[in-house]
Structure formats: structure tokens, C-alpha cells
């Protein structure tokens, strides 16, 4: 297992390297000159030339890349072009916020999704299945700005249970932030729940049809034992992959939800950077999201292999 992990970590390094080249190249093709952007429209030619020299923009591209990548690895992610503050603390702070939201959302929708998926599979084509699949489909299809606004209207403004605005202090602890997290987490969960439910449902239906589940039934084991030992362990395999993909989405892709609630997450920071052509910020944020996807996939694969002895490695 250790060897396998090392190998996979090696691959993550490789992935990050390839991603860094792509991200660096793409940001080079964005319109506009960085020095011009920083100094504004009315800067003099000399000022721009000086700044270009200072930022190393006159050096060949590969040197620029190596400088950037080297600094990035060393933890120096540069300063924001817009606000002139160091990028790393800013990104890390937002990442922490996103992680709080993602964690709460996962806690809500993964167990519920599995529960609903298993119920739907066991009661296949009967009314509980029809309700569950129907409702979960509807939520998957519902855009987050609609479900978010509906939740605000009912739970925040109508019943006044939760605050409508989640623009928390960037350095809040989880406990402090919790009341503000609930509505955005529910909004996100409505989408995620549908995917988990459907994946669990189809996985469980496949497993229910297998000979080994029939064999387990005919061993006379109590129903819950058949479910936990024989069904779930095999039927949750596809769900594990979906959950892992969800982590990447939750940490870096919640642009709409974060906007609806004004929540300071990583997704919004990235949009902000793109709108203002803040290149170092875009680069650093993208690299972080690549890293998150890589590691959550690794986690999924490790979990998958623990659940599935057929592909378990390093016997």
C-alpha cells in the first residue's frame, strides 16, 4: 500500500506539473499587458518599461515559467495585482471557508443520498422509489440561484430561522460561521443529493440482482446483515467516486451559491480575479483547485481499493 501511495503521489506531482504549464500558458494568452494593467491607462512608456523589467516580463517565457513555478513551490505565490497584498494568505483563508461549507454540505448530502438511494433501490418501482427519484431529479435540475433564493425567501425571510446573508468575517471559526453556513450548505446539498441518490440507487439495484445477494438471503442471515455486509459494501463503490468528484466541485466551483449568499469562498475569489485580470491570483487559485481534485481522487481510489479487494494493491 505504501508503495502504491508513493507512486500515486508521484503521479500527482506529474499532474500538477502538466497543469502548471497549461495554466501558465493560458494566462499568457489573456488580452492586455500586465504592466499596463497595473499602472493603468495613463502610465508613461518608461514607467511601463521599468515595471516590465521589475516583473521579469522581458525574460524569455520558459524563464518566466521557471521563476513562477519555483516561487510557487517555495510558497511565494506573489502579490495580487489589484490589491497588492500577498496571495497565499488570501487564498488559504478562502480555502478554509470553502472547506467549512464543503464539509457541512458533505455531512448533509452524502448520508442522506445513500439512505434515499438504498430505500429507492429496495422499493424499486414502488411509490417510495418514484417519489425519491422524481424529487431528486427535480433538485438536480433546479439551478442554485433559484433554490437559493427560494430558501432565503422561506427560511430566512419568512420563518427567520437562518440569516439570509452569509458574508461572514473571513477569519471566523467553524462554530461562529455555522449559522451562516446552513442555508448555503442546504442549497448545495439539494444538487449533490440527487447525484448521490441516483448513483447509490443504480449501484444497489445492480448488486441486489447478483447471485451472491441471493445466496446471502438464502443463508438465512438477518436482513440488516445482508444489507450491510453483502449489499452496501459493493453497491457504494460507484458512489465513492461521485463523492470525491463532489469535493473538488464544492471547494472550487460553488460560484453561484457563494454569490447568492455573499459567502467568501474560493470560487468567488477566483471569479473576482478573472474579472480584474489578476494573473497571479488566477494562477494560484487554479493550481490549488487542481491539487484539490488530484488529492480527492487519490482519496477516492484508496477508499475504493479498501472496499474492493479485487483491485486492492500491495498484497
Amino acid at each position, binding site marked *: 500500500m505504501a508503495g502504491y501511495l508513493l507512486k500515486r503521489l508521484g503521479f500527482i506531482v506529474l499532474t500538477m506539473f502538466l497543469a502548471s504549464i497549461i495554466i501558465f500558458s493560458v494566462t499568457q494568452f489573456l488580452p492586455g499587458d500586465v504592466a499596463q494593467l497595473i499602472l493603468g491607462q495613463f502610465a508613461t512608456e518608461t514607467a511601463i518599461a521599468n515595471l516590465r523589467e521589475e516583473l521579469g516580463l522581458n525574460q524569455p517565457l520558459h524563464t518566466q515559467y521557471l521563476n513562477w513555478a519555483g516561487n510557487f513551490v517555495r510558497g511565494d505565490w506573489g502579490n495580487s495585482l489589484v490589491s497588492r497584498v500577498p496571495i497565499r494568505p488570501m487564498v488559504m483563508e478562502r480555502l478554509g471557508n470553502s472547506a467549512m461549507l464543503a464539509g457541512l454540505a458533505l455531512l448533509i448530502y452524502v448520508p442522506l443520498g445513500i439512505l434515499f438511494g438504498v430505500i429507492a433501490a429496495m422499493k424499486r418501482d414502488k411509490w417510495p422509489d418514484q417519489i425519491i427519484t422524481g424529487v431528486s431529479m427535480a433538485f438536480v435540475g433546479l439551478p442554485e440561484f433559484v433554490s437559493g433564493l427560494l430558501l432565503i425567501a422561506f427560511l430566512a425571510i419568512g420563518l427567520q430561522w437562518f440569516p439570509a446573508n452569509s458574508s461572514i468575517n473571513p477569519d471566523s471559526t467553524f462554530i461562529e460561521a455555522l449559522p451562516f453556513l446552513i442555508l448555503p450548505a442546504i442549497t448545495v446539498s439539494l444538487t449533490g443529493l440527487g447525484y448521490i441518490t441516483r448513483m447509490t440507487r443504480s449501484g444497489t439495484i445492480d448488486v441486489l440482482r*447478483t*447471485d*451472491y445477494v*441471493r*445466496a*446471502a*438471503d*438464502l*443463508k*438465512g*442471515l*438477518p*436482513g440488516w*446483515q445482508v444489507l450491510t*455486509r*453483502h449489499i452496501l*459494501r*459493493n453497491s457504494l463503490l460507484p458512489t465513492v467516486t461521485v463523492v470525491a468528484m463532489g469535493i473538488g466541485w464544492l471547494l472550487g466551483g460553488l460560484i453561484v451559491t457563494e454569490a447568492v449568499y455573499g459567502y467568501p469562498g474560493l470560487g468567488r475569489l477566483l471569479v473576482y480575479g478573472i474579472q480584474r485580470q489578476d494573473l497571479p491570483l488566477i494562477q494560484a487559485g487554479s493550481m490549488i483547485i487542481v491539487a484539490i481534485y488530484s488529492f480527492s481522487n487519490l482519496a477516492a481510489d484508496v477508499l475504493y481499493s479498501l*472496499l*474492493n*479487494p*479485487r483491485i486492492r494493491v500491495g498484497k
Partner: protein
Amino acid sequence: MFDPDAAFDIQRDQDAGRFVLDARDVTVTYQTEKGPLDTVRNVTLQIMPGEIYGLVGESGSGKTTLARAIVRYLPSNGRLSSGTVMLGNTDLLGLSRAEMRNIWGSRITMVHQDPGASVNPSMLIGDQISEVVRAHLGMSKKQAKARAIEMLSKVGMPDPESVVKRYAHQLSGGMLQRVLIATAMATNPQLIIMDEPTTALDVTTEAVILDLVRDLLKEFDTSVLYITHNLGVVARICNRVGVLYAGEVMEEGTIEQVFKNKLHPYTRGLLACVPRIEASKKDISLCAIPGFIPRPDQLPGGCIFAPRCELVEPACKEKRPSQVEIESGHLTACRRWELLQNDAGAAFGTCPARFEVEQELGDLVLEARNIKKYFPVTGGLTSLWKRSRTVIKAVDDISVRLRRSFTMGIVGESGCGKTTLARCIVGLEEATSGEIELEGKIMPYSVVKRSREALKKMQMVFQNPDASLNPQHPAGDSVERPLILLRNMSRKEVRGRVRELFQAVSLPAEYINRLPHELSGGEKQRVAIARAFAAEPTLMICDEPISSLDVSVQASLMNLLVDLQESKGTSYLFISHDLAAVRHISDWIAVVYLGRLWEIGSAEDVFVPPYHPYTEALLSAIPIPDPDIKQDAIRLKGSVPSSMNIPSGCRFHTRCPRKIGDICEQLEPPWRELDNDHRICCHIPVDELRLAQSGLLQNRADRPGRDL
């Protein structure tokens, strides 16, 4: 006043406890779109203590449905609509689902068909055995584990302590079936239901498992309901047998009674379908039962077998015949049983050979010399920069030659390289080295490099007709393709030719427009055969073409192949693990093990001693549907070694029952020539083999050295 119910109850009280299982008048009804359908009707099944009761029938006869109904594990749209089921003194129909769970696994256990699919892939083998004893015998974890190991050693599992810590994918099919049998016996149940437990296994493994079941029953006080389609298996291990047809019992009795007298035409028909190892296409043709099993919604009035019966008379179609008890325990549902009793040849008795006996030696069609096929073992991404050193030697130097209108049978266990050899010859797999010569022309290894003329000459029929016909295209389209692609026919010619081909394979012309899912398995295979013949090949490669089909369908397909060979002069390379079928259809037989040939000769020579010890083991494993034939119990240990690690010296030495010593481990054996180009590759001299081997058929007198 006579009260039939009361009389029944009295009878029942007397019988109570006499039978382990007493299922009476069981009818199973499925709720379908067409309304309720009775798939099993009024079947009575009584199993005595210590008995192995064989339930035989073709697919669709209701065997599995009946078994599921007895254990009350029917799908949600099925129910046991009438009848009674008693297990000892317990009325199973009166129990709740929860109470049934106490019966399952403790008093009735089951062994299923596909051992690979019946074991949970993500749970340790040991846990899957011990969970049963923990649930039913209340054992502690430690006791249960000890019990699992004990049971595994009872079923002859080598190294049971380590097997309990393994997963399903680490064991072979035969080993997994032992695990399932160990699980089924762990609670010492009253009744074990075995549903086709050896169908998915090699014939050699099947023989070992059957021996095991019989030996275990001597030790355990258990009865068995053994479900199978294979009459040979029934003859080998059962005490009594019931023949099921379209959901009704046609005949029932002891093995002796049923196999000797055969008082139902269906039983006779089933037996006449099975190829016999002492006769080939030159001696007899197989008597296929015409027609199909009727669907439950299209049952004929009167006797349900009447539409397919040779002895049918008008009275048969009027009233459903009731079961008659001819002698104690021997029941038949045929009203003409007296005729059958007096005339052993009535109904599906003998079918004269259709094949011309005189066969002159034709031209050489195929000569494959020193074919090798090595598969590199790839290890994921590392294979990009590292050339792998381990190879799987699937075919390792095999040469075969085949003359016009001849059939070469290739036999061997699964994993021996039979199919790879065939695919190399056809070009679907590129051979690693060797020469393939078709009618004197050397063929490129890959099918895509072969000329159209060569493709036309060599066609293939695959094992699984479901997978080899495009489900979206009507059957006629599949047959059209080779006509258009390989023979440049015009639209109009094609249409006429397709009709002729359908006629040649005995399919009605309206099937041309049907989609594959509207055809039965046998019909699909006929379409595949028609497609192969459309190109008018000189060589047909048949890879297990009949293995997945029912015996009566197998018989008609084999007859079809023989007829087509005779009329068209095609040569066949016929691959099968079914030795009786190979014997029937082949002129020459090659025995393959671990990628090499070990014996080759005419079918007559290969099937009588002296033969290679591997051939001997294969032959002694064949389940023969005749309880009078006593076979030597020569059993192979373990399973075929991996082609990645081929044993040194003689490749067969690790499992050879006749190993003579170190020479077998160190030296490759020499080829020994006998008469008629019959050759055996073994260290044991031919004369010694002849002395040691007693031959399959004890009653055959023409075998020299039998009494020595």
C-alpha cells in the same frame, strides 16, 4: 361419506417424517402482462432421507422455479398458488418470512450454478462460511472460524487456513464451488438444493465435485435435490430422478428404472439427443426432438408433449394423461407406456447415420505449423518504458492439418489454448510465430491483412450467438453481409441466396426479418451458421458452437453441421470441452493442454486405449447417461496451472495420475507413433500405457489388453 380431504390428511399423517421434503401438487403462478401464468403445475416431489434426487429438464422446464417455490424465494410476481410443502414435520407454507430465514441456511441450504457469482467478491471466504454458523448455530467468532476451516478441509480444500483469508477472485471456479458446498454443509442441513452446481465447470472439475458430493453425503445426514440438464450427471450421482417438461413431471423413478425402461417418450428423446462416446456421425445420427418446449400461455390441450412426440395418437391430444405408477416408485405421464415397456426402440429409438461412411482422403485444406501465441503480461503504465519479461504462452508450438470434408476436434480444459489457437488460425489474434497455410497459400497473421478470397474461405461460428449477432439488425441482414462484402452479389441475388441459406439451416423464411431477441438460442446459432456458410467457406472454425444450448437443440445443430458438411464438403475445426460431442462429429481429434498437443489421431483411436494420461483423465470424467457403464475414477488434482508458469519437463506432470518419476519433471516427453498416424506425447511407452489403461467401455471386446 367419503371425505377426500380427510383421507388426504390421514395419508399425510402416516407419511409425516417419512420424507425429508414432501412437496405435493405444487403449482407456481407468475403474474404477467398477459395475466396469470402457471409455469409449474401440480408437481409432487418427495425426497427421502439420505437421497440424492435428480430433477432434470431443458431450460424453461421449470426446474429452478420449482426449487425457488419450495424454499419460498420466488420473485415478487411469482407465488406458490396451490399445493403443500413439508420439510420434515414443518409446514413451510405456514411460516412467515422471518421464520423462513431460520429455515434457510440451517435446515435447507442451496448451492448455485455460477460459483464465481455466488460468492461475495469483497468479503473474505472464511467470513462467508462462518456467518452462516454464527447466525444459525449461535457460535462465537472463534468457533465459527474453526468451523469454517474444518468444513473447508472436509471438502478437500488444500490449505484451508489460508483460504479463509482469501477473496473470491483468488480462487478458481472449482475451488469456489467447494467453498459453496462447504457453506451449504456447515450447518448440517436436512436438505441441500444444488442448482446446476457443475454446469459452469470443466468436465474434469465437475467429476471431482460430483465425487466430493457423493462422499460427503456418506458422512453427513443430508438429502440433496440436484437440479441439472445433464442426464450423465444424474446417472452418475443420483438415486432417483424426476424428468420435468414444461412445468410437469413426465417420468419419475429410481435411476435404474428410468434409465433402463424409459417409459416416457420425452425421456427417450432426451437420451437420444446426447451424443454417445462409442458412436460417431458415421454410426448414428442424433435424434433431435422436433419443435420447442411450449410456453406456459400456449400449452396444448391433452398431453403437453404430444406436439413433439413420435408416438402421438388422437387420444393423446384429448385429455391430459394422469400419472401411472408402473412399478413401485416408477411413474410416467404417458398413456402409451405399455407400448414403450414392450418396445425398447419405440420413440426416438434409433436414427440411422446420415453420413456417407466412405470418405476418401481429400486435399489438404489447412496446414498450421508450429503456431505460437504469447501474450505479454502488461503492468499498467510501466509497460510504456519497460518491456515486460513475463509472457503468457497461450499456444506454444501446435501444428494441425486438416483435409477437405474432414472435421478436426480440439479438446482440452478451459485455459488450455483451444480458443486462442482457433483465433490465431482465423486471424482474429495475431500469432507470435508459425505458419498458417490455407489451400497451399501462406496466410498473413492478421485478418485485416488477408485477401478477400482468404476471408471467404475461412469462417467462424462463435460460442455465444447473443454476442455474435448484432441485436439491432434483423437476422437476414447478418446473413446478407458476407454475401455483399465477400461475394459481390447484386441485391436481387442476395435476397434469393439468404432465403436458400435460411432453408439450409432449417429456419422458416419469415425469420429473415426478425431481430435476434425474437429468436431462441438455438435459432440464433442457426443464423450464425447460415452467416458463416454464406461465404461458402472451405474451412469453418466452430468455437464451442453448441455449449450454451439445451441437449435437444445441440443434437439438431450437430445434425445440421454434419448435413451441411456432407452437402458442401466443408472442413470443420470443432472446438469443444464436451468430449462426447467432439467424438460424435470429428474424424480427427487433437488433445490440447497448456498450449501444446499431447495426443492426435482418428476419433476411433483417441477414444480407446492406449491414450495419453491426460486424455484418459478427460474420458473418465465424462458423465455418461448410462448407469451400466462403470468408468475408472481417474481424477486430476487441482486446476490447470497458469500459462505464465509452465511446469518443467512434461507440462502435465503436476497433475498426471501416471507420473513415472523425475524424468517427467526434467525432460520433455517424446512423440510416440502408433498405427494410423495416431501419436501420443508421453514418457510412458505405448505398450505400458496399453497394459495399464482399462478403457472406457468395459463391455467392449475389441480392445486388446483389457483383461491383463
